[in-house]
C-alpha cells in the first residue's frame, strides 16, 4: 500500500447489510401506477393486481365518458345558439330547423369537397378509392382473378403467403370406399397448378377431434376434374377434416378439406 486511501485504525470488518429486496419487483404493481396524485418517488397508486387495473380502467372510463358528455353538451349548446341567431330566441321550432339546415349544409359541403378531391388526378385519395373499389370488387366476386394487376402480390412474398389462397373450391369427384359410407362435402381444394398426373395418397385428420383415426384416401390428378377416393367410417366424428397432398418425397403440393 503506497497511496491513498489513507490507512487508519483497524475497525471490525465491514460487511454489506442484508437487504430486504434482492431484485426488481417486476409485477405490474411494482411499476405501473394510476394517474392519481400520491406522495412518493413515483406519483400514483400501485396496481398490485388485476383488480386494481380494472378499477383504474373503470375510473379512466368514467373520466373519458364525462369528458365526452361535456363535449357533446358544449356542441349542442353552440348549435342551439347558432340556431337562435338565425331564427330569433323565441322560436324553438325555428331554432331546430335552422340547426338541421346547418348540419345538412355542412354535410353537403363535405360531400362536394370529397367529389372535388377525388377528381384531382394528383391526389392520393384517388389511389385509395381505387384500392377500395378493387377490394370491394374482389369481395363480391366482381373482379376476375385474371384481371388483377400483376404487381399486387409478388410470387413468394410474405404478404402473399400470409393470406389464405383465394382459390375457389375446385370441382372434385368423390369416390367413397368401404362399407360405412358417409356424406362428404369438399370445403377446400388447393392443388398446385401444372401438377404432373399422379395418384397421391392422402390422410384426412379431424380438425376438432385430435384423437380420431385418420381417413385414408387417394387423390388422382390425371383426370379432369381430379378424383378423390376416400374411406369413411361410421365412428368418425362429424366436422372438418384436413389433408395434406404430398409428392413421394414429402413436398406438399396442396391441401384438401372435407366435411363429414
Amino acid at each position, binding site marked *: *500500500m*503506497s*497511496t*491513498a*486511501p*489513507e*490507512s*487508519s*485504525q*483497524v*475497525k471490525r*470488518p465491514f*460487511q*454489506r447489510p442484508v*437487504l430486504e429486496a*434482492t431484485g*426488481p419487483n*417486476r*409485477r*405490474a404493481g*411494482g*411499476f*405501473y*401506477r*394510476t*394517474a392519481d396524485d400520491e406522495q412518493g418517488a*413515483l*406519483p*400514483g397508486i400501485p*396496481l398490485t393486481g*388485476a383488480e386494481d387495473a380494472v378499477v383504474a*380502467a373503470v375510473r*379512466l372510463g368514467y373520466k373519458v365518458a364525462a369528458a365526452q358528455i361535456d363535449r357533446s353538451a358544449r356542441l349542442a349548446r353552440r348549435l342551439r345558439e347558432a340556431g337562435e341567431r338565425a331564427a330569433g330566441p323565441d322560436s324553438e321550432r325555428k331554432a331546430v330547423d335552422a340547426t338541421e339546415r346547418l348540419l345538412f349544409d355542412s354535410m353537403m359541403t363535405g360531400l362536394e369537397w370529397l367529389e372535388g378531391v377525388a377528381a*384531382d388526378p394528383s*391526389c*392520393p*385519395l384517388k*389511389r*385509395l378509392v381505387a*384500392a377500395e373499389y*378493387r*377490394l370491394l370488387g*374482389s369481395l363480391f366476386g366482381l373482379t376476375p382473378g385474371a384481371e388483377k*394487376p400483376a*404487381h*399486387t*402480390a409478388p410470387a413468394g*412474398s*410474405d*404478404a*402473399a403467403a*400470409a*393470406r*389464405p389462397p*383465394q382459390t375457389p373450391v375446385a370441382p372434385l369427384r368423390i369416390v367413397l370406399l368401404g362399407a360405412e359410407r358417409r356424406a362428404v362435402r369438399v370445403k377446400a381444394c388447393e392443388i398446385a397448378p401444372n401438377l404432373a398426373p399422379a395418384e397421391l395418397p392422402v390422410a384426412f385428420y379431424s380438425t*376438432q*377431434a385430435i384423437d380420431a383415426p385418420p381417413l385414408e384416401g387417394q387423390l388422382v390428378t390425371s383426370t379432369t376434374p381430379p378424383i378423390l377416393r376416400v374411406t369413411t367410417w361410421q365412428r368418425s*366424428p*362429424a366436422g*372438418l377434416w384436413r389433408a395434406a397432398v404430398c409428392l413421394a418425397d414429402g413436398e406438399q403440393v396442396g391441401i384438401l378439406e372435407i366435411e363429414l
Partner: protein
Amino acid sequence: MTEAARADRVRVVIVGGGCAGMAAAWQLSRLPGYDVHLYERSWRLGGKGASGRDEHGRILEHGLHIWLGFYENAFRMMRECYAEVEARGWGPAREEPQDRLPHGSIDEAFFPEPHVGVAGHNRAHEWEVWSGHLPPMKGRPGDPIDPESNPFTLVSYLARCFHLIKTLMLSVVGPPGGDVPGQPRPEERSHSDEAVELDFSFDAARSPRVLVERMARMLRGGVLTTAAGVLQGVTILEDWLRTFKLAPQAAGTVFEFVEAVAAQTRKLLHDVVAVDERLRWKTELIDIVITIAVGLYRDRVLFDERGLDAINHIDYRDWLIKHGATRTAVDSPFMNGIYDLVFAYRNGDHDKRALAAGVALRGALRMFFTYRGAMFFRMRSGMGDAVFSPLYKVLREGTATGDRPARGRVTFHFLHALSRVELDFEQEDAGRIARLVFTTRGDPAALDAISGTAALDHFGCWPDDDRLFASAAGKQGEGSVTLHADEDFDVVILATGVVDFVAACADGADPKADLFRLPQWSAMRKHVQTAATKAAQVWLNRDLDELGWHRGPGLISALGTPFGTWADMTHTLGSERAWREARARDRKEPPPPPDGVRSVAAFCSVLSNDEVESADGARDKLTEHVERDLHTLLESGIASFWPLAFSGEQTALDALVAADPQQAAGSGIPGQHVQVNFAGSERYTLALPGSIGHRVSPLDRSVTNMTIAGDWTACGLDAGCVEAAVMSGMLAVHAITGHTPSLDDIVGYHHP
C-alpha cells in the same frame, strides 16, 4: 477529523470511472460518512463514454453517443451536477483555465433531437429513407416526476401509444419520390407535414391544400389502422377462444369465422399496399406493433411476476415470428435499425443477429412511451466534455455551500489499472476481498498529485492521450499499488467492464480463491458476452446540403454499409472552435483562422471477432482495417445518401478537410478519426437471448465487502447503455448503504 470519527467512516474504493463508477461516486458523495476513492486505468474518465481533444481541439470519441429521453437516472445525475456547475459559475467563457468547462449548464450541454430515421432497400432495390419527427413530450428527463409529466401511468402509456401511432402514420405517408436520398424532400410535403404534425389548430380555410392532404392521409391511414385494429382484436379473440375449451363444433365454427376475418383483414392490408407501394413500410411497422401487442397478451408477460424477463430466452425476431409477424416485417429496416443501434450481433457477426426479446421490448416501451422532452438528446461536444468533465470537477472539489446539498469529495487515482483481486473464501458460498492490486503507469504519488488537480486541459476537456501525466510517467515507468481490506478500504465497487472484471477476479493458481467457483459467477462468466465495435468521424469541407443530403441533421440507422449507423455531428464544431479560441486567448495570440470544416459525420458499427482475430488483436492492424472500411464507405457506400459528393472521379473522400485547422483544406492530411474498441472494458456488452438471467445483480452478497456496477450487471434495464450503467451504480450504493438510494428512487428499476 478525530481518529474516532475517521474510524466510523466507511472507506469505499470504486474501480472504474465509466458511467457506472461515476454514478456510484455521485450517489456516495451526497451521503455523510463515506470516504470515496476512485481508481481509473486511463488518464481520463468515461470508459465507453470517453472522449478526448487532440492538439487542434477536435473531439475524438470512443463511439457514437446519443442519450435517450427515458434516461431519467442519468439525466437526474447530470441536472444535479450542472446545478453545481452553474452555482460556481464554471463555463467556457471563464478567464481562469481551472474554472473552465465546455458547458456552463445542462441546456448548453444537451439538446433535443426529434429526428430519427432508418434506411432500407425498396423492392426495386433502390435506397429509401424513412425519417420521423417524434413529438415532444411534457417535462424534461431527470426532473422530479410530477403528476403532470409522470410517464409511468396507464393513462400515459395509452395516450402516448395513440400519439405515437398517429405520428408514425403521418410521417410515413407522403407523395412518391419524396423519400429518395439525394433528391430534395418536396417543400410542400415538408411544409404540410410540419403543419399537420405540429399545428392541429391551423385554419383550414386559409390552407385548403393542407386540408386536402390531411384528409387524404387520415382516410388512407384510417383504412390501415382500422384493419390493423380488427386483426389485432381477432387474433386476441382467437387466443382467448383457445383458452376457453368450447364444444368442438362451436369452436370450429368460431375459429373458421375468426380465421376468415383475419385473412380478409390481412388481404385488405396487402391490397392497399399493392396499390400504393409507399405504404409497405407502414404495414411492416403495423405488423410489428400488432405482433407485439398479441405476443404480450399471449405470453401474459405484463402481469407475469418476471415481467418481460419471461421471454429473455428467445431472440426478438424469433419471438415476433412466433406470434405471427411476417418475414418481411422482421427483416424490415426498422428491425435492422434496432439491431444496429445496440450492436445485437453475436460475436460481432452480422449473420448472427441476437437480442433478448424481453430486453428489446422493455427498451422499446421505455423509449417510446416514457420519454420526456424528446426521444433523443445530443451533446454539443464530446461525451467526455459534456458529462465526465463536470462530474469530475464537482466530485473532486465537493460542495458545502448555500442551500445546495452537501457533497463530499472524491479522490481520483488515474492510470491505475486493476490487475488482480485477491479473495478469501472462509465459507463455501461467501467470501471477502482481501487485497486489490493495481498496476500504475508512472509514480503513484506523482500520478495522484496530477489526478487531483490537472487532469483536464485549458478548456476543461480530457486530452486524447496521457500527455498531462507525462511528467509523472517519466519519474518511474510502471508502478504498483496494493490496497488491503480493512486497512485501506472497507468495501469495493468493481465498476469495470465485464472482461476486465473476469480477468481480475479469476485466480488460476488457487481455485479456492477463484470467484468463479461460485455457480452464479461461473454462469455469468460463461453467458455474458461482449462485442468489439468500431467508430469513425470525418470532418468535411461541405455541409449536408452540398453533399446532397437535404433532410437535415438526424440519426440514420440500418445503412447496410461497412458502418451501420450515421449521425451528423456538425453541432460539435462550435465547441471545437471555442476550444481553439480559448487557447489563443491564454497564449495572447490572435483568434485562430477558420478551419474550413462545414460538417462532421460520425459512423459506428460492430466489429466481428473474425476481424479482430485476422488482425492478431493488434490495435494498429485493426485500425488500418477500419480505415479501409471508412474509405470504402466514403468512396462508394455513402453515394446513395451524399450524391452531390460524387461527380466524375470525385468521391466523398475528397471532401475530407485537413486535420490541422492552421492548414488549408485539402492539404492532404485526412480529417478523420478511427476508433477500434476490442480489448477489455472497451467492448460492448451484448444482451443475448438466454444470457440475461445469468447476469449478477449489484445486490448479490456472495462477496460481503464487494459489489459490482456496469451495464453488464442485472441492473433492471439489462441493456448496454448509459442508463443501465447509471442504474447499476445506484444499485451498488444501495447495496452498501442498505437504504439510500431506495430501489424506488431508481426510476424504471421495477419496470415489468
